[in-house]
């Protein structure tokens, strides 16, 4: 039974054979029944013919035993008996030797019955009628031997044929099930070989439309996603190590240099300050990275409240106003109406703050930044931030929300960024069930858009 549980092939074959067995048995049973009925009907027709002939003969030469003996001779010893007025008129020789006994009751046209005499079955037809004023009862019988032997032969054929057929079907089914399932075995074998080292391997797809092909396609899809997330993870790890290494190198070399010779207290002070600055940068980086790892679990434990996105955005704009002022930029915040939405305030602020910070950084001196909060056509809440930066080239647009991704690798570190601003903004929008995307970008600047779906506004 263990094999039964572990082998799909055996299970398939078993159920298939069981179904076939039931079907074949039912089929044989029906055939047997039909054959029996048809043979009996034929027998009955012959009996009816005999009764008819007997009746004719009595009518022609009204009922003398000699006449009936002549009839017996003509018909090749039929089994029959004739009664007249309730007493026996004639019994054929074969009736007598068969030892048949006529039944007591007979109607004008009674259905033939089966009777048994001396270990033999007979089919017996009877008829009661009046001829020339006398009451006659006619009986005719035929042995069932032939019918029975035909049926027995048929049954024997079924008894032997059925098991043989089933065994053949089981063996054949097993072979076919094995063939049909072989690709699954091959897939399992291949899948076992796939590890993080060779994620580029794919399962072969022979037929894209059958079940196995679809399974292989689905599996390959999983591998695609796995490979790309693995790729992202690798890239992220490499980027993160690079980002961490830079301040670490600075800390190390500043410390080593100042210790190389006896320096005055000012030099030590300078070195330590520089080390502290770098370590502050490091802790910021680590904190930001930790924040980005928060996901589903933390989403559930967040306490949301109903906030007016307009008020929230305006307060952020006024906070960041000084940065724009420093660059002689105009920062305009347009709010058309009250836009209430259910968000977790501190994380959602992060999304808006990072976008505005990003816009101020990328807009040149004297430029303008436009922030808008409004209600979309299908009830969603929208916050857009338009800058006058250089725009983001097509090839970078997919990746600007990736951690540490920089369009211009040289500039952002100098500007004090960690390269995580947009990644944090997107994370913050998404953890509040919103979306952040780059809606437009060209030489005149970019437009970032946060969308909070309607369902959350209640």
């Amino acid at each position, binding site marked *: 039974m263990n094999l039964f549980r572990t082998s799909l092939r055996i299970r398939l074959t078993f159920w298939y054979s069981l179904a076939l067995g039931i079907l074949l048995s039912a089929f044989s049973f029906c055939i047997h029944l039909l054959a029996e009925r048809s043979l009996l009907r034929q027998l009955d027709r012959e009996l009816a013919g005999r009764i008819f002939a007997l009746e004719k003969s009595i009518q022609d030469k009204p009922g003398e035993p000699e006449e009936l003996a002549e009839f017996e001779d003509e018909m090749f010893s039929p089994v029959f008996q004739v009664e007249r007025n309730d007493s026996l008129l004639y019994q054929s020789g074969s009736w007598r030797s068969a030892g048949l006994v006529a039944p007591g009751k007979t109607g004008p046209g009674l259905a033939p019955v089966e009777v048994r005499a001396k270990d033999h079955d007979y089919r017996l037809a009877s008829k009661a009628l009046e001829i020339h004023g006398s009451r006659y009862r006619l009986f005719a019988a035929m042995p069932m031997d032939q019918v029975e032997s035909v049926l027995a032969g048929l049954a024997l054929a079924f008894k032997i044929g059925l098991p043989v057929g089933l065994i053949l079907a089981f063996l054949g089914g097993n072979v076919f099930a094995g063939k049909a399932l072989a690709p699954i075995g091959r897939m399992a074998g291949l899948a076992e070989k796939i590890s993080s080292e060779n994620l580029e391997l794919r399962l072969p797809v022979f037929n894209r439309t059958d079940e196995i092909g679809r399974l292989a396609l689905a599996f390959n899809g999983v591998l695609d996603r796995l490979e790309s997330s693995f790729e992202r993870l690798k890239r992220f790890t490499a980027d993160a190590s690079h980002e961490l290494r830079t301040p670490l190198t600075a800390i190390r070399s500043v410390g080593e240099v100042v210790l190389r010779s006896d320096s005055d207290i000012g030099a030590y002070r300078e070195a330590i300050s520089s080390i502290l*600055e770098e370590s502050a940068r490091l802790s910021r980086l680590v904190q930001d990275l930790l924040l980005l790892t928060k996901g589903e679990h933390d989403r559930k*434990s967040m306490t949301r409240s109903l906030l007016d996105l307009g008020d929230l955005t305006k307060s952020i704009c006024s906070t960041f106003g000084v940065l724009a002022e420093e660059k002689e930029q105009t920062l305009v915040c347009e709010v058309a109406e009250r836009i209430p939405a259910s968000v977790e305030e501190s994380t959602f602020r992060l999304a808006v703050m990072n976008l505005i910070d990003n816009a101020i950084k990328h807009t040149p001196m004297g430029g303008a930044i436009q922030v808008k909060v409004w209600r979309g056509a299908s009830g969603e809440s929208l916050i857009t931030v338009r800058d006058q930066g250089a725009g983001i080239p097509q090839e970078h647009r997919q990746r600007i929300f990736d951690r540490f991704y920089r369009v211009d690798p040289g500039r952002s570190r100098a500007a004090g960024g960690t390269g*995580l601003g947009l990644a944090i903004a997107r994370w913050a929008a998404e953890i509040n069930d919103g979306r952040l995307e780059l809606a437009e970008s060209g030489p005149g600047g970019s437009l970032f858009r946060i969308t909070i779906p309607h369902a959350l506004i209640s």
Partner: protein
Amino acid sequence: MPKRILIIEDDVKISKAIKRGLEQEGYVALTALSGEDGFFQIHSQPCDLILLDVLLPGRSGIEILAALRKAGRRTPILMLTALDSLEDKVSGLDAGADDYLGKPFAFPELLARIRALLRRGGQEELLLLRTGDLELDLAKRKVVRSGRNIELTTKEFELLEYLLRNKGHVVSREMLAVDVWKEPNRATPIDNIIDVHMTRLRRKVDEPFEPKLLKTVRGVGFMISADSP
């Protein structure tokens, strides 16, 4: 009489650094490197405040905390930990911690929290803050230096007030972000904003006058003090 502070922290380097820093501030600092040792010291000598690491070998900080509170000790406890998630904070505060500081922390922030915990319940809110010839009147919302009125924006006023409340002590950017800008999330891109306000405040409060009161401690934060460094 100097306040006694017990540091229960298993990392020797951190423990030593905190001890030295606290001693420089005039506190008496005691150290325990394990939960058991800490628990023993708490019972053998009185202290005014406990700095408690959450992840300790042997007994966890939360266990010690719970045991202390159960025994009826009301000593203020400041939890230190690298676990930064909300649940850890909640479980620490639930167990009876008075405050919570995530690692890595800025030392000025630790000092500020310690000062806050030690004076808890004491000291009324001052309405007139003063350093040197600079005076900030909270009731009239006025700032005067050397008899001259100084016009400040709301944020600049709040910033100056915060610096004055911590006069003589360094305040970090994190402290300013949380306490003045009310941004509890540390991942906010607010450092540049703080710097801009600091520059403007300095221009109004310090530039026309001598001596300079606002000091930048590079890599650490800002401080207001009438003493020359």
